[in-house]
């Protein structure tokens, strides 16, 4: 086909328009985040301390890591709701292997292997069998959670190896300053921002999510791209699960319940369109931070967790509604 090189170039100019649009969205999110921080630092004297700010980064890390994965999947035009169950499930091989071998690397390897298997299954069901991703990952979500209950008999598996590294992974601080989970999440975020902006694969994800038919004609392997996105999402959910079980100090059977809702909310708040093809990871990171600072700040004001839920829900609606409003005004 003679025209295919032209088509392959076609997605090139589009990102620049997308990027400028996305950047504007990020500015709005940043203003929102700063406003929150200013409000809370005026309202509570203990909010604006290095200790608390780094704490929030630590608390945000789980949603940040998993959010990067889900965002990539959503940008490719699919969705992954099995991440909550998976984040809970990886604790089982992690803790069991550690208890047997007293080795953290082996435990992590086991946990990531489980995540890889789930990612491959999700990816195969969605990309190659063509099952709608919400249905497929809803199915694996049930299967994994059921599997956890079945295996553990609805009890937590305690960590009996008491490895210092395992405790440090979730609770320690890099140079006694930045919590390790925060450090890990920032590294992962930076890598994927680079991939999404600079690498051909990142651009392929946008192309596939924006218009799969055009992407296919341009010579991209749409199925492979979607498959890899779902595998990445599962692996990152696995990483989040490892950090979570280190924080909890055991494999808890109810860990990660409802985590998928939190993450999807943060991703959409960050400006990623559920229709696919639109969004940026910087936006996602800001979305995660806004929700984390909100929950931390409301906690500092001694507001009951129930109020935190109510306020968070209200702010999600307000933020997305504002974004829609802005977009409609821009069109006119």
């Amino acid at each position, binding site marked *: 086909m003679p025209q295919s090189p032209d088509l392959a170039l076609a997605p090139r100019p589009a990102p620049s328009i997308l990027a400028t649009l996305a950047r504007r969205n990020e500015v709005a999110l940043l203003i929102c985040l700063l406003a929150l921080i200013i409000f809370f630092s005026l309202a509570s004297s203990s909010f604006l301390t290095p200790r608390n700010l780094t704490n929030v980064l630590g608390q945000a890390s789980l949603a940040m890591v998993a959010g990067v994965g889900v965002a990539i999947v959503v940008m490719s035009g699919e969705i992954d709701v099995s991440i909550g169950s998976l984040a809970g499930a990886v604790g089982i091989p992690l803790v069991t292997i550690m208890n047997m071998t007293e080795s953290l690397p082996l435990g992590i390897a086991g946990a990531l292997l489980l995540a890889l298997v789930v990612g491959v299954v999700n990816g195969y069901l969605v990309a190659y069998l063509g099952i709608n991703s919400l*249905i497929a990952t809803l199915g694996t979500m049930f299967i994994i959670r059921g599997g956890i209950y079945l295996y553990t008999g609805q009890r937590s598996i305690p960590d009996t190896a008491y490895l210092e590294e395992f405790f440090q992974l979730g609770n320690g601080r890099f140079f006694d300053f930045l919590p390790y989970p925060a450090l890990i999440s920032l590294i992962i975020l930076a890598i994927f921002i680079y991939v999404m902006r600079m690498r051909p694969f990142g651009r392929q994800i946008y192309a596939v999510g924006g218009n799969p038919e055009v992407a296919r004609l341009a010579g991209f392997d749409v199925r492979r791209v979607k498959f890899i996105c779902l595998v990445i999402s599962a692996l990152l959910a696995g990483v989040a699960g490892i950090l979570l079980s280190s924080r909890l100090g055991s494999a808890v059977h109810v860990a990660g319940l409802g985590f998928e809702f939190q993450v999807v909310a943060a991703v959409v708040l960050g400006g990623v369109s559920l229709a696919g093809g639109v969004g940026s990871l910087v936006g996602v990171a800001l979305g995660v931070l806004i929700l984390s600072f909100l929950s931390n700040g409301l906690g500092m004001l001694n507001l009951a967790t129930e109020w935190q839920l109510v306020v968070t*829900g209200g702010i999600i609606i307000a933020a997305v509604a504002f974004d829609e409003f802005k977009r409609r005004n821009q069109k006119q």
Partner: protein
Amino acid sequence: MTETASSVAPPSRLRALTGNNEIVLIVILAVLCVLISIGAPQFYSVENVVAILRQCALVLIVASGMTMLLIAAEVDLSVGASLAFSGVVAMDVTNKTNSVLLGGLAGIAFGASVGLFNGLVVTRLRVNSLIATIATMMILQGGIYLYTREAVQNRHSIRLFTDLSTGYVGPVPVPVIIAALVFIACYVVLRHTMVGRYIYAVGANEKAARLSGLRSERLKLGVFVFTGMLVGLAGLLLASLMNTGQPTAGRGFELQVIAAVILGGTSLMGGRGTLIGTLLAVLVLKVIDNGIIILRWNQDLQMIVPGLVIIGATWLDLVRRKSDAR
């Protein structure tokens, strides 16, 4: 689905009655019934069949509304939280007024107002319904604990209230009758009225529907409120069944309902789906639940098997459609 099938070829009686996906579900249901009855002959006893139908009732009531919502290309994830909250409200109001009628109305009105809120956020503020109803879910989960810290006990002991879920008319439990009435009403509206056709039209192509003069926002708002009302009704029945208003009830209910609706062949993109499919899917899921119990299998399989069935049925449907297209 039925529509396209019937417009292409002169429909056979069966084809006209059942969409394509429904054939897969009927086969699955039949296979399940045969397999379970081999393992446990008591599966076919009257008590067991009644028990299965009773367990279907709550899910079917909400799933009927959810089917309409998905056909209109929207979704409501707040139904689980709203279910628990309306149950608490119904019980509380009945306690305070000693009137089941007022309590029931309060529960249903609460559900409807949650639906109204969702509908307004989605249609006026243009927030995507998936994210809007996740937010509503959070608000309700927080709100219910602000309303009551512990379960609202039944302090009125009115027979009628408990009869709503445990009573019988002849051999048929009351909730089954209520569910059947709701289902039939929804079926008639969706298949045989203009409103039903409009719902399909708005879901299939909202722009085209609006250009041809449909007030799509209003229609969607109506479906949200209607679904909310059904959630309120289900919440009332749940409170009556448990004899308390339990704030922790309804966890994961939204996923059960949505799993049933999409297993029934309703498209997530809107514009396609049938209530018969939803009914069959609810039956399949509840027969599985029941089978696991009477076969004395580990009850944790009640999550795994439906997960497998949802994926498997969708895949079978895809395969069948591909071979049809050839």
